[in-house]
C-alpha cells in the first residue's frame, strides 16, 4: 500500500513536471490569456486591464485597480461574505443578555 502511494505520488509529480515544460513564456503575446481576442473572436478583458489600469485610475498597482475598480462588485461580495461569516458566528455562538 505504501509503495502504491509513493508510485502514485511520483507519477503525479512527473505529470506536473511534464506540464511545466508546456507552460507558455511569461507575458507571451501568443498565449491564450494574453491574446487580444479570444478564440471565438470577442475582445479579451485581461489585455485591456494591463494596458489601461494606470491610465484609468492613476494607480501603479494594476491588481488593486482590477480588484477595486474593474471588479469592484466582486470585492463587495467578498466583503459581504466575511461580514456574513461574522454575523453567523454572532447568531450561533453569542449568548443573549436576557
Amino acid at each position: 500500500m505504501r509503495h502504491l502511494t509513493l508510485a502514485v505520488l511520483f507519477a503525479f509529480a512527473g505529470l506536473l513536471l511534464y506540464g511545466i515544460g508546456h507552460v507558455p513564456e511569461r507575458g507571451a503575446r501568443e498565449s491564450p490569456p494574453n491574446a487580444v481576442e479570444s478564440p471565438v473572436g470577442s475582445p479579451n478583458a485581461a489585455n485591456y486591464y494591463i494596458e489601461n489600469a494606470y491610465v484609468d485610475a492613476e494607480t501603479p498597482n494594476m491588481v488593486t485597480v482590477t480588484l477595486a475598480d474593474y471588479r469592484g462588485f466582486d470585492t463587495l461580495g467578498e466583503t459581504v461574505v466575511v461580514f456574513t461569516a461574522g454575523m453567523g458566528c454572532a447568531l450561533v455562538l453569542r449568548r443573549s443578555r436576557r
Partner: protein
Amino acid sequence: MRDYYDDRIVALSARLVTPFIQLFALYVVFHGHYSPGGGFQGGAMLAASFLLIRLSIGTAAAQSQFRRSWGTPVSSIGSLVFLGTGLIVLFYGFNFLDYAGLPFSGSEPELRNAGILAIELGVAVAVAATLTSIYDDLVGEPLGPLAGGLDEATEVAEADQVEGPERDEERGDG
C-alpha cells in the same frame, strides 16, 4: 478557565510588538495602490494585532483597545462604507461602483484613485472588526479577575498594588 496566557514576558512582548503590527497594517492598507496589499490583507493584520493582545493579557483587559461590543457595529460600518461609495455615484447618474461619479472635484483618474482608497478602507475596517468579533464569539464572555470590564479591571489593578499578590484568590468566578 482563563482565556489568556498569564505570563509577564508574553504580555510585555505582545504589547511591544502590537503598535508596530498596527502601523504596518495601516501601511499595507494605504500603500495598496503602489505595492502588494490592500484592504483584506491590512484588515487581517489589524485583527491579528487585536487578537495578540486578547491572547496575551486577556479579553477583559483588552477591552480598552477594542471592545467586544464594537465588533458588530464597526464591521457593519466598514461594509456600509463600501456599499455607500457604490451607491453615492448612482445618484449622480453613473453605474454602481463607478468611482468617476464621486461628488468631488478632480479628473476622472484621480476620482477613481480616491474611490479605490475609500473602498479599501471600508474593507479593512470590516475585515478587522469581523475577525475580532468572531474570536470574541468563539471565546465567549471573558472570565477571570477582569471580567467586569475596564472599570473593574482598573479597580482590581489598583487593589493589587495596595494588597500585594492576592490575585489568585480573586480569580475564581469573576
